Every structure is written in structure tokens, then in C-alpha cells.
């Protein structure tokens, strides 16, 4: 039971991060019908930029409080990612908006590898220790379950961000314009929506989410690496599909569910397969879920879209 609850907590923490990243995939997919493969790598850029800032601050102002340092590093990482997201959209995706659907997809894959390569050039190929500014010492155990302050921060932080995003999309003028553009570019443009601006803003907002998720992800595991974004990116996409792509609530639900499945899967797989498989197979769960969802319920848990958009 204790193991069960512990895995539940771990799953929730990872799931919240997946959910944040999944929101980025789902918003771009909803508005452009594009899987932005490079989104996962924005997560990495966010983490790496934050790491660089922290290292700089540690050298420049050794006595700084961890909270201030975290805030400052986020304040650097978020704009960097936003700028990068905007640049990608402006330079590559916008020009391919009317191209055959294969073209933007291949460009997105290229973007993803380009970002990884640039990160490799800037930060080398080694794993870096990511400063864990929020304590990772467990709090008082409740029912035998250890929860660390960083885990609490991640879950609460991502919940707040998601709530803010929902308000933005459902209640504001910008949100309405986004939904209109997602529904139909041309009609939205005829109604006076600057669709180019809205699409660019979507990319910028997504990039900000990715940056925050990157800092959370790296803080949770305590390491950062040029390739750290790709796999979580794919998993987040899986989460978005699981929830129903193009649906914000779905992305959140999918992220949490995927986090839980992975956490329980890794915890119990050895037991369930009588030692045949072990936790090094953790990464296959996301892909198996993806396959199953696409075969049996292509609209996802909450979505309405069909799967054969080509």
C-alpha cells in the first residue's frame, strides 16, 4: 500500500510536468494541425538556460536566496524560449502553412534536431547537475508516504498555470480569437482576427509553458542534458492524444494519466511479468498507450477530432 501511494505521488508529479508540455502540443495541433516535434526541445532549452543563469548567479551573487535565484532564472529562461518559439514559427512554420502536410512535419523534426545540436554545441554532451533550489528532503511522512517540497511545488505550480491558461483561453478576447482561429483560419480572418498574430502568440505561450516545465523537470531529477527534452516531448504528445488532441482539459487529464501509468508501470512491471521485464522498459508504456488509443479510441478520452487527418 505504501509503495502504491508513493508511486501515486511520483506519478502525479511527473504527470503534471507532462500535462504542461502536452498543453503546448495540443494548442499548436489545435490551431495548425501540426505536431511541433521541437516543442519537447524547448523544454530542454528552458532547463539549460535556467541552469546557465543559476550558475552565473551563484558566481555573481553567492549569498542570494534560492527563491530569488529560481525566480530570476525563470525570468531569463521563459523569454529565451518565447523568442525561440516565435522565431521558429516566423522563419519555418509560417512559410509552410499551405504546403503539403508532410513538409511542416519534416521541418519540425529538423527543428527538434537543430535545437539539440545547438544545445550540444553550447553545453556539450555531458549530463549537468541541475541545482535543486527547492528542498528535496522529504517532509513529515503522511501514511508512510514521503513527499518533498519540490514535488509539492511542481504539482501546485502546474495546477496554477493550467488554471490561468484555461481562464486565458475561455474568458479573454485573445482566447476567443485563438479558438476562432483553431476552428477556421479563413473565417476568423474575415471576422477581423489577425490570425498570423494569434498563431505566433500561441507559439509564444506554448514556449513559455515549455520553459517552466523544463525547469520543473530538471529540478525534479536534478540533471540536465541536451537530449533531455525529446523523450518527455514525445510522451507529452502521447498525453495530448490520450486526452483528445486539441482539447486543453484533455491534455491535462492525459498528462496526469500517463504520468500515473508510467509510475505504476515502472513500479510493478517486474512483479507483473515475473521478472522478465524490469523498470528499464519504462519508456515503452507511452508508446503502447499511444498505439492502443489510436487504434481503439482515436478521439482520445475527451476529444472529438478524427484520427485520419493526414
Amino acid at each position, binding site marked *: 500500500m505504501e509503495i502504491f501511494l508513493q508511486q501515486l505521488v511520483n506519478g502525479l508529479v511527473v504527470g503534471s510536468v507532462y500535462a504542461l508540455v502536452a498543453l503546448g502540443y495540443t494548442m499548436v495541433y489545435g490551431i495548425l494541425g501540426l505536431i511541433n516535434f521541437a516543442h519537447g526541445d524547448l523544454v530542454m532549452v528552458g532547463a539549460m538556460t535556467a541552469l546557465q543563469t543559476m550558475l552565473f548567479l551563484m558566481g555573481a551573487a553567492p549569498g542570494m536566496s534560492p527563491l530569488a535565484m529560481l525566480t530570476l532564472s525563470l525570468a531569463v529562461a521563459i523569454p529565451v524560449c518565447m523568442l525561440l518559439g516565435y522565431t521558429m514559427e516566423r522563419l519555418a512554420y509560417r512559410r509552410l502553412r499551405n504546403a503539403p502536410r508532410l513538409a511542416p512535419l519534416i521541418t519540425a523534426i529538423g527543428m527538434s534536431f537543430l535545437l539539440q545540436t545547438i544545445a550540444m554545441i553550447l553545453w556539450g554532451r555531458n549530463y549537468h547537475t541541475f541545482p535543486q533550489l527547492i528542498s528535496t528532503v522529504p517532509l513529515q511522512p503522511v501514511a508512510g508516504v514521503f513527499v518533498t517540497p519540490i514535488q509539492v511545488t511542481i504539482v501546485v505550480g502546474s495546477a496554477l498555470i493550467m488554471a490561468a491558461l484555461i481562464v486565458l483561453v475561455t474568458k479573454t478576447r485573445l482566447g476567443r480569437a485563438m479558438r476562432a482561429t483553431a476552428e477556421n483560419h479563413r473565417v476568423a480572418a474575415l471576422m477581423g482576427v489577425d490570425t498570423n498574430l494569434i498563431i505566433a502568440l500561441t507559439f509564444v505561450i506554448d514556449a513559455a509553458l515549455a520553459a517552466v516545465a523544463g525547469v520543473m523537470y530538471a529540478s525534479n531529477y536534478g540533471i540536465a542534458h541536451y537530449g533531455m527534452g525529446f523523450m518527455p516531448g514525445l510522451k507529452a504528445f502521447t498525453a495530448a*492524444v490520450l486526452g483528445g488532441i486539441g482539447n486543453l482539459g484533455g491534455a491535462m487529464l492525459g498528462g496526469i494519466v500517463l504520468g500515473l501509468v508510467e509510475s505504476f508501470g515502472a513500479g510493478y512491471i517486474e512483479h507483473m511479468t515475473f521478472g522478465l521485464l524490469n523498470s528499464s522498459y519504462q519508456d515503452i508504456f507511452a508508446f503502447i498507450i499511444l498505439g492502443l488509443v489510436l487504434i481503439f479510441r*482515436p478521439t482520445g478520452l475527451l476529444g472529438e477530432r478524427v484520427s485520419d487527418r*493526414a
Partner: protein
Amino acid sequence: MNELASAVPWLGRRNPQAARWLIIIVAIAAPLVAVLFGRTWVRVLDFALLYVMLALGLNLVVGFAGLLDLGYIAFYAVGAYTAAFLASPHFGVHLPFWIVLPVAAGCAALAGIMLGFPVLRLRGDYLAIVTLGFGEIVRIFLNNLNYPVNITNGPQGINALDPLVLFGWDLSRNLDITENLSINSLFLYYYFFLACVAGSIVFIQRLQVSRVGRAWAAMRDDELAAKAIGINTRNLKLLAFSLGATFGGVAGGLFGAFQGFVSPESFSLMESIAVLTMVVFGGMGNVAGAIAGALILSALPEILRHLALPVQQTLFGTVLLDPEVLRMLLLSLAMILMMLLKPAGLIPANARYSHVEHLKRHGVSR
């Protein structure tokens, strides 16, 4: 061959016959020229031919049938590991090459069908990401199937694969003609691979103009319309996946025997992307494009490797970009820039059947 010949710049359109001969001469002379710069370059050519086979196979799936496959390297892995199981000291099995290669191809084809069945309904992006997942699953299994029963030997990979032996003729040994003159094994492999590639080209070109090839083109251009005129898209998709996989499996088997060593590292996602880039860069749906893309993108990083390091050394006094970084940079830029500037690829496929302009140009009334 015609497609390849007409892609030769300048000569192709004026004198296809001469272009054809030029290609044959270049193909035969290439390793003889390469060896002047050192034996490694012959090795590079050998690997380039393996990439050509992979690109041809992937082109079948992506270019002909229009199914974007991001896990193609999984079939290469299946072929290579099958060869490793059947001809290495790992299990102590040493079957002759003429059994190993067909079995490797067959296993890969089976893997292709296994992938194809569940994803029949998917197209476009969803298909891409599911195939990517398939490739990753295969790699994860290769990496971890050394416990509790050692099947793949885990991350260490399998060593000492049997070399290629054709009719008692060992390709890994230098061929001694006289006391002083011997042909290096790298050349023997080159010409054997060249023969395999030539066979593949003939097969694929016949396939392209066959009923199946034309049905693929129809399916690629408009699946609904293809279904409406009675094309069985399900079988065609499975056939595309399994045939493409067969090429991957054959290339994998050759790769294993040539390198004498397989490990999960050779079958990473990066390799899938690299092969896809070759197809896209060369021009999808066209044999000449796949070949050109594969040759350029597998040789260029090697050339850069030999040029860029000394250049950086003299300019900056230190190596800023190591060869692997350069390769990734080149591939990712090739993908992005090609899509932005020349989406049809280096050698655009001439749409023989489907495009209205083409039909008009050739005087076919509608």
C-alpha cells in the same frame, strides 16, 4: 536506370545513353579513386551503399506509398540482429550466408507486417509518431533483453559476426591474385554491395510501373479516390510496409556481416531520421533522388569530418564542433532548408500518372 541517367546534370537530357555509361563507370571506378585518399574512404563508400539500400527501402514506404515511417531503422536492426543470432559465436550458431540473409529479410518483413496491421487506419502525423514509437520500442528491447535471459547481450551488442562468404569465397579476406597484388576486402564488399544495390534498383523500378506501384501512387495522392476505384488500400499498405522492411532487413544483414558487430547504438532514432532526411533531401518518390540523397548525406559528413577538424584546428587552435555534432547539424539543416526552399527535393519525382499538368504536357486528353 533511366530515371538515374536523366538526373545526371547536363548530359542526362542530351545523351541518356552516355549518362548511363557514365554512371556505370563512376560506380565501378569510385573505390579505385577513393583509395587514393586512403582506405577509410573505401569504407565510407561501403557504408554509403548500405545507406542507399536503406533509402531505397524507405522511399518505397514514404515516397511511393505516402506512409511516413519514422521507425524505419527498426527493420535494419531486426535484420542485423537476426544475422547476429544466426551467424556468430553468441549462440554458437553459424549458418551459411545464403540462409542468414533471406531469414533476416523475412524477419524484417514480418516485423513490417506486425507494425503495419495495427496502424492501418492511421495516416500522416499520427502514423509518423506511432512508427517512431515502434522504432524506440525495438531499440529499448535490444538494449535490455540481456536479463534474465541473455538474448541480445544488451548495450554491449554482439561481437564477431561471421563475415560474408559467397560460395566458399570469404569477402573479409583480401583476394590474393599474385604475390604482390591483392584486392583489399573493402573492395570486395563494395562490389558485392553494388551488385545488391543494382538488383534493388532494377526491382524497384519494375515495381514502380507495375500494378502495385501505380496503385501505391493512387493511394498516396488520394486514398479515398483509390478506394473508390476498387484499390485494396489495406493490402497495399501492408505490402508497402513489408517490402520496405525487407530492404531494411537485407541492408541490416549486410551491415552486421560487414561490420562484424552489432549493438543497439547503431539503431537509434537519429539513424531513422538520417535515412528519412536522405529520402526527403534527394526527392521523395523517386529512385534517383533516394540514391543521390543517400550518397550525398552519408559521404558529406565524412568529408566534413576530414576537412573541418584541421580547418578548426588552424583557425581557432581547438576543435569547436566535433564530427558527430557536424553530422547532426548538417542533417537537421538539410531537412529544414530543403523543405523551405525546395520541398520536392534535389531530384523531384516526375509525377508520371497523377498530375494534370503532366498529362497535358504529354498530350493526353482528359
